[in-house]
């Protein structure tokens, strides 16, 4: 019986250990989909990381939860010079780090210097290259990796403790959006330097300064607890300058990767927001009041390898592009209200008129495409079209789309199109080395401006990956960067998109929609084009407010369980039942 006793003993001991680590449920729990790569704002690129960093740190501005307009953050106010090149930020004097130090303009100079320095290896460093001298500061290094240029050559200056001046290379209309973007959030110098002094080993201090017990932040929340691949528990920061307007006391960010498991936790009320759902359940979820997809700043498209015959022929690319039945794809496969794409730039960019190519009905597309192929020398009377492959990364959703696309090409054009799926990292490698015919791709914009999509395809651009290049296109992208007049600038970008749609190195398929499931009672969470939700605005509605909200929504919607506190949870400073987190 000894082994049993031993087992039982271990069991009891382990249960004791496990129960002591239990946490009370948080005010608000959401699925962050995956473990974050790091809490260091400078070194992250992903959406899940962004959600956490927006809770921990605060940049110069935050974005209004509904309109996405910049609102004061660390900067109390700001001004832009006449030539749109110099931004002056007035840092608020009541902002503090969690170690008691005031947040000053010097913090931003320090953080951005660190961010731009190539040794920090910030993947998003290029987002700050709109600043004068910044690109050279990152790119020009000696053999030890030290920057050749002094930071004085970069247009980021502290003018006293509370004024920050930023000088740009050229007018950048989306610069304020960047200032609310998490890689640009400041970090605390003392925090990092103390860690460097205590743990001289590089790999050691890089981790140590980010430990919950060491990390110094300036945002609405702090890290209370972190377990890898489980959760990050956030706690309200009482020293945050706007703490009176923060409702949630605790937030849990979970790391559930399985969409099915995430949905189960949502349906049983243990999570209040999940950012994605199982694609095959979408038709069932669509009528529910808590699932309301809205347009999202992303495009799903196929890259075409323009270096490989027959795809080097624009007529072939066009023939392939016009035959894709986008309407079928969004109606029968994706089903969440995605919009068929006939251009690269998604809708919803203020003032931009996209340059889309003409949508043809299937019969017209077939005739036109066959003509184009015949002109290129393929089809009846010409050469046979070689067997081609549709390349995608392993996933059911991508496979379904690839199947439809390949089927259409077979039926309409008589092209022998096969499917080729690869595991994610192998797929990326194939794409980088142009080892494909046609390859599934996607791009999510970092800020609502056509530039974030269009500058991808300049000749030799790192993210081009089609082998395509066009001198006129490059010229237009460069010209748009120095155009001060916003309308003229957007017109130039439109011309660039028109070239792209005429040359077709890519085949647009559809524009994304968001797929959040959000507890009906959760307030301060609005669907928006960037799927951007600063956690400081979240709160729980009381019964009265929830009833008012439901009275406003379409009657056809299915009412679901209203998890969350029925008396609501409002920030201390809010008096009325419906708070207004807006001043812009």
């Amino acid at each position: 019986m000894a082994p049993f006793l031993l087992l039982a003993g271990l069991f009891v001991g382990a249960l004791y250990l496990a129960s002591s680590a239990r946490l009370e449920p948080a005010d608000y729990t959401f699925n962050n989909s995956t473990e974050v790569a790091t809490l260091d704002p400078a070194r992250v690129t992903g959406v899940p990381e962004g959600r956490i960093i927006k809770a921990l740190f605060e940049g110069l501005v935050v974005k209004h939860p509904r309109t996405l307009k910049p609102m004061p953050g660390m900067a109390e106010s700001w001004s832009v010079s006449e030539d749109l090149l110099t931004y002056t930020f007035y840092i608020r004097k009541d902002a503090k780090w969690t170690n008691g130090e005031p947040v000053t303009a010097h913090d931003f100079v320090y953080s951005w210097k660190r961010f731009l320095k190539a040794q920090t290896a910030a993947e998003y460093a290029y987002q700050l290259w709109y600043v004068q001298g910044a690109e050279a500061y990152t790119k020009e290094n000696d053999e030890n990796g030290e920057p050749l240029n002094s930071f004085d050559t970069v247009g980021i200056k502290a003018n006293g403790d509370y004024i920050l001046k930023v000088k740009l290379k050229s007018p950048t209309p989306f610069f304020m959006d960047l200032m609310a973007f998490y890689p640009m959030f400041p970090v605390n110098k003392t925090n990092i330097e103390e860690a460097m002094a205590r743990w001289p080993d590089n790999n050691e201090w890089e981790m140590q300064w980010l430990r919950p017990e060491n990390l110094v932040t300036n945002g609405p929340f702090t890290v209370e607890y972190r377990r890898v691949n489980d959760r990050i528990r956030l706690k309200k920061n009482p020293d945050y300058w706007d703490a009176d307007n923060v409702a949630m006391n605790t937030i849990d960010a979970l790391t559930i990767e399985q969409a099915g498991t995430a949905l189960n936790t949502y349906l049983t009320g243990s999570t209040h927001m999940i950012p994605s759902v199982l694609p095959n359940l979408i038709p069932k979820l669509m009528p529910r009041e808590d699932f309301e997809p809205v347009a999202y700043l992303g495009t799903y498209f196929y890259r075409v390898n323009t270096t490989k015959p027959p795809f080097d022929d624009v007529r072939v690319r066009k023939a392939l592009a016009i035959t894709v039945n986008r309407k079928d794809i969004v109606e029968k496969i994706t089903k969440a209200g995605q919009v068929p794409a006939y251009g690269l730039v998604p809708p919803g960019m203020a003032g931009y008129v996209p340059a889309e190519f003409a949508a043809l009905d299937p019969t017209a597309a077939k005739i036109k495409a066959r003509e184009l192929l015949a002109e290129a020398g393929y089809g009846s009377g010409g050469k046979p079209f070689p067997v081609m492959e549709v390349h995608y990364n392993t996933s059911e959703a991508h496979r379904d789309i690839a199947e439809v696309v390949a089927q259409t090409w077979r039926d309409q054009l008589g092209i022998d199109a096969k499917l080729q799926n690869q595991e994610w990292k192998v797929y990326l490698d194939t794409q980088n080395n142009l080892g494909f015919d046609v390859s599934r791709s996607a791009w999510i914009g970092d800020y609502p401006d056509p530039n974030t999509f269009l500058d991808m395809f300049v000749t030799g651009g790192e993210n081009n990956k089609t082998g395509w290049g066009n001198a006129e296109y490059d010229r237009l992208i460069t010209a748009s960067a120095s155009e001060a007049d916003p309308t003229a600038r957007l017109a130039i970008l439109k011309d660039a998109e028109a070239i792209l749609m005429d040359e077709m190195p890519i085949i647009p398929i559809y524009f994304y929609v968001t797929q959040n499931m959000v507890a009906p009672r959760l307030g301060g969470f609005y669907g928006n084009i960037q799927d951007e939700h600063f956690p400081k605005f979240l709160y729980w509605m009381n019964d009265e407010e929830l009833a008012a909200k439901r009275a406003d929504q379409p009657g056809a919607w299915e009412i679901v369980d209203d998890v969350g506190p029925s008396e609501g949870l409002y920030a201390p400073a809010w008096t009325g039942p419906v708070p207004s987190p807006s001043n812009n």
Partner: protein
Amino acid sequence: MWFAVTLFCVVTISFFMMRSVRGGPFDGERTLDPAIERNIEARYHLDWPLPKQYFQYVGPFNLDEHRAEIFGGDGSKVFGGVTMLEFGPSFKYKDFTVDQIISQSLPISALLGMVAMMWALALGVSAGIASALKRGSRLDLAMRLAATGGIALPNFVIAGFLIIFFVFMIPLLPVAGWGSVKYMLLPGFALGAPYAAYIARLTRTGMLEVLSQDHIRTAHAKGLAPKTVIMRHALKGGLLPVVSYLGPAIAGVLTGSLVIEKIFKIPGLGTHFINSALNRDYTLAMGVTILFTVLIYSMNTIVDLAYTMLDPRIDLEEM
């Protein structure tokens, strides 16, 4: 010692296999600027020739001659690597070392494994005894059917049924996560079910064999209560096969929990085993592989030792 040889082979083969797979840890949808990429590679020594990376990884000597000047500090720390039980920083979870990740997740997997083994033993042994005592009855048939089902059904199917019954139809237990005991019951059961089935079969066979032996008949004959006969005399011999099966079973639940951990969202080792390979998180994948090697190896050794203790006819020298 064969253990060291095995471990060496595992480390070496998996190191070079891992590196030969296409795609690297820092490849992403957005291609990096060369200046940034160079620095990331330099930080993790990915710019070194492969053999040098290997020796750095194995340790114990630090081969980075620029350590002090590039990375700051005084370069005093010259020992490291796997031989010093330092598995290095995770490439994907940059805030953690592999050692930290393992020390956070191994106890969770171990606990889950233990709950699974408790389920397996409790259900398996009692079902096996019942089956053996009522041999040929309907109960026996039902138990044997259940056992066959437990072996045939993959644990994720069992998990799905459990979730439907005990979470959605009868809302008793949480659907996923890790915390108090109630979080452990369903995943523990799903993980333990195939082992329970196997244990039930072993117990039944073992018990049947013992029950037909002379000393049991003697015990009955001397007028002992049937309960005493079974608990005191029959069980001792009848459970021998089960005990010897415990080693592989424990190694099995520890290393075989990947799917269950995913479905029930348990922050254990299994998830890292899959994800680290997919993420090309070289150090974490190596760490988990080495750990699993050690676990399986030691469990098998324990079983071998247990055999010699339980059955004097087996000699350790011959194995």
